């Protein structure tokens, strides 16, 4: 039996990048410490703020919600949860009840915003339309763009000061690499522990950004949290290739993911000089903030022959 470096109990995790073994208790403590450190170091939350957390029901967002509820209790913050139901059969319909149950057990107000009610079509239906129209776009493009926009709007309507998402170290490093591969400076520039306030946007925070995906998963499992652990049917493409590539590198060269993150964080201030500032406008169609005349969501909807059906997302009924 291999033992925890710190307390001698049975080890549950080999944190190879730090050269230590951790038992269940020490891993849970360590994750909680990193979460608190991220909040303090990057000033992600102030006492008394209202925080909206995006919860899909997966391990990351369930862990984030449990960590946040404890933090908010100590710091007098108010927490509400938002789930975007994209409409992915066999996936989101299974994770949604888990999100709901967790929120309920923690006594958190929970709001569900669905693609179907907002856009008149589920993601599954959008994908079928996209295929019929032979657009070259990946389901994750529709899903990501529209989910981000709805989350922001829902958080704003709920009067949130911050919108917390459960992006972990792996998610962030994958996004850095993806934007490198695509030479997308403006998206690259927007990555980081928080996203500064701008007109129409609720500032986003990522308190799990420096916690590896495996440690978030272990945290959820070792604490016995109820989480959804299935794979989205639309995963694939370049996202998956980048993820596999990074995991291969990390397995052979522990600490690589952290190195990529640190490198990016040091480069980020320099990026500001080459990324053009753009003026924020309001989408002519839905009123959401955008740099163009029409926001990306409305543009994608139009390509699919769809349009937005509801202007306001949060009604007393959606809770």
């Amino acid at each position, binding site marked *: 039996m291999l033992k925890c470096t710190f307390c001698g109990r049975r080890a549950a995790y080999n944190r190879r990048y730090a050269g230590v*073994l951790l038992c269940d208790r020490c891993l849970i403590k360590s994750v909680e410490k990193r979460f608190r450190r991220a909040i303090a170091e990057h000033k992600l939350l102030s006492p008394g703020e209202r925080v909206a957390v995006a919860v899909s029901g997966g*391990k990351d967002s369930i862990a984030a919600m449990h960590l946040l509820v404890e933090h908010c209790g100590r710091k007098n913050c108010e927490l509400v949860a938002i789930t975007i139901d994209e409409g992915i059969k066999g996936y989101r319909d299974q994770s949604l009840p888990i999100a709901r149950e967790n929120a309920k057990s923690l006594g958190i107000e929970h709001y569900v915003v669905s693609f179907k009610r907002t856009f008149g079509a589920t993601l599954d239906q959008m994908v079928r339309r996209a295929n019929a129209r032979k657009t070259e776009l990946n389901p994750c493009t529709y899903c990501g763009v529209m989910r981000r926009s709805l989350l922001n709007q829902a958080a704003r309507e709920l009067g949130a000061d911050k919108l917390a998402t459960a992006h972990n170290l792996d998610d962030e490093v994958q996004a850095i690499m993806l934007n490198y591969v695509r030479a997308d400076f403006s998206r690259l520039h927007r990555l980081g522990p928080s996203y500064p306030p701008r007109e129409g946007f609720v500032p986003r925070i990522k308190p799990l950004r420096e916690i590896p995906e495996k440690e978030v998963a272990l945290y959820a*499992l070792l604490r016995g949290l109820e989480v959804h652990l*299935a*794979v*989205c049917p*639309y995963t694939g493409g370049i996202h998956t290739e980048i993820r596999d590539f990074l995991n291969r590198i990390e*397995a052979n060269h522990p600490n690589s993911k952290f190195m990529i993150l640190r490198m990016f964080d040091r480069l980020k201030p320099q990026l500001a000089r080459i990324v053009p500032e753009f003026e924020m406008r309001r989408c002519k169609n839905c009123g959401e903030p955008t740099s163009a005349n029409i926001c990306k969501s409305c543009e994608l909807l139009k390509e699919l022959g769809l349009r937005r059906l509801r202007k306001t997302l949060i009604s007393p009924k959606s809770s």
Partner: protein
Amino acid sequence: MTCIKIVVKQVGKRHKRELRLAPHATIADLLRKLDQNRETIVVRRNGKIVVEEERLSDGDLIEILPIVTGG
């Protein structure tokens, strides 16, 4: 040298598999054989989450739980 026999269950897949491995083989050896990256899974040995450097024993039940879900 006699081999050890273990049972592997990949969570999310139906079948359990019985595998023979060299004595003193570790979970990491098993993962290599199954082409599984430790970054993307959690391993339970006889119901307990363990580190990949643990040695396997004859009759062990190993569960491999994928943690990378996308989305």
